């Protein structure tokens, strides 16, 4: 294996040695990759709500609206991050069965999973999760409905801003709408391995 390291690196050096001049790293403003006209001067929560809808996700402004949506879909069993449950529990009626421990041997028992987001991106309608904030990777992925609780103050305007804020967490994931595929004859199907419903609950 170490031999392979040396042989690869020496071949790379050999390949580059004949170049008289090497291409410089271009200097640029990340602004050129931002859809500025979309976000300029607007309330980021409003842009985010509009953009997540465009990627067939949903943003709801209060827990009552979330509970109504879950009830309407018949998604009555689920998981909730134990840190969130005390504030959310009063909104859920007795017809719901919500667990604060996630049992990975029963993944199909959870119709929804409620976890905390690390932030959101307005421009693309993206929910940001990471290891520090999201209580369980599986609970945000395996249930049919994923609800991410997003603070209004945590919404980044655009992709470059969100990249700059990745920080030290070993695993940051951007989720933009429900899991989907078009592998079979190019027909779009939502809910492949991950959630078929990607919902952001906006809180102050």
């Amino acid at each position, binding site marked *: 294996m170490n031999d392979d390291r040396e042989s690869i690196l020496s071949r790379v050096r050999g390949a580059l040695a004949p170049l008289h001049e090497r291409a410089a790293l271009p200097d640029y403003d990340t602004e050129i*990759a931002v*859809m500025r006209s979309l976000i300029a001067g607007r309330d980021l929560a409003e842009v985010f709500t509009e953009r997540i809808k465009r990627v067939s996700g949903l943003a709801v402004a209060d827990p009552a609206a979330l509970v109504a949506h879950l009830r309407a879909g018949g998604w009555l069993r689920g998981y909730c991050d134990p840190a969130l449950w005390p504030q959310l529990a009063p909104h859920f009626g007795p017809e719901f069965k919500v667990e604060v421990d996630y049992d990975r041997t029963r993944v199909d028992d959870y119709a929804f999973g409620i976890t905390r987001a690390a932030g959101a991106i307005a421009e693309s309608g993206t929910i940001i999760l990471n290891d520090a904030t999201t209580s369980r*990777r599986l609970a945000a992925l395996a249930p049919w409905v994923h609800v991410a609780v997003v603070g209004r103050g945590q919404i980044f305007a655009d992709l470059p801003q969100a990249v700059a804020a990745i920080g030290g967490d070993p*695993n940051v994931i951007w989720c933009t709408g429900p899991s*989907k595929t078009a592998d079979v*004859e190019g027909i779009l199907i939502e809910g492949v391995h991950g959630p078929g419903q990607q919902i952001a609950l906006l809180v102050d």
Partner: protein
Amino acid sequence: MRSQPIDQFVTTLPADKRASVYQSTKATHEKRTKLLFDEFADPNRLRHLAGEIKQHTLEHLDTYLPAVEAKMKTNGVTVHWAATADAANAAVLAIMRARNATKMVKAKTMVSEEIGLAHFLEQNGCEALETDLGEFIVQIDDDHPSHIVRPIIHKTRREIATSFEREGLGAYNDDPETITRRARQFLRHKYLQADVGLTGANFVSVESGRLVLVTNEGNSRFSLAAPKCHIALVGIEKLVPRDRDLGIFLNLLARSATAQELTVYTEFISGPKSPAQPDGPEEMHVIFVDNGRTEVLASECREILRCIRCGACLNVCPVYRQASGHAYRSVYPGPVGAVLSPLLAGERFPALADLPKASSLCGACNEVCPVNIPIPDLLLRLRNRAKQENVPSPGTPPMGAWALMASQPTAWKAALFGGKVLNYVPAKLIPVPAMQAWSAKRALPEWRGGEFRKWLKNRLQKSPTP
């Protein structure tokens, strides 16, 4: 006239498949154009910039590779190097053996296709299950992907339903939603039982040592949420210098690949899971794979290593649209494949030397490329290489007669006059089979040979001094 291998393949393609590949590539291409040009003031500036960043990176791999290795080690990642396909396969197997692991779930990675990883692991008593829906179907059919981004663009829902029935995934049902739900149900339990999750990487930031992975289905996320060990196979060309560069590339990749603003899941991974996180890998390995890339880097076609595997050049290519992916007989089809496959083939170059010729050099691939690779120029360089190496080229029209004519002014003038005679001879009567085949569905334009000479002569007489 004997035709080239790619033409021979096309004649075996059923008309409905050809039509469906044509339609879906065309639709994706048109949506891509709309997305890029509606939203960005100057999308071409973005493409050129991305190309410059990648070219810079390639030409500094001698410093960037050791730098990213050091960063990854600091992040808690075990780094391996594999010069060849065999070495890469052996490295994966060694990691699995060390953990007594026998079950792997695989996200989509083109490098694993290159090295034949799934077959290798199966021969060594390990299960290596594809989890991308398209790749899963390719695997159960023992087939090969025919598109970089849409592996089963060549399959109909009826064929897929038949395969699912055969594999015991339910009674025949060709509704795409039912097919997807069945795969979801089957695969989620496979993730939970797997020991190892294997992925590729779309980008690797040298600055932070982070891998960036994008998927729409969420299969790579599941492979990193259930198993306890993560192995990433990474081609040595995947680096970008800084995190901030990712903003440019992510914007271009999704739009170019699937005409989306952003892929559904974009994951930034710098190491094993946080200690407090219950789900995810406790151990992470990165295997840097060469497998012919350093040879490409040394060649005059090194620009092809900028490729970010979006498939936009396949979607726009008039040859790919007619021929579809299997015609290219290699892991990478389409215009990028016509350059990359013969180069990666090493000593087998002559066997794929016809691919660079299967192009009209129309330049559409260069125009859509998110990293601005001059594919037509590279195709010409490879045609030249084949000529230099005296690779036989069956099916290429003989050019000897043309060369003789073009180098003898008298013969040329005689031919121009002879051409005029053709205007009075019905094409059917010309005793050249290729000509008859060509004219069966087309009409020859009227011969106007010699007009330019006449025009130039008159012009010189009118204004003798320039």
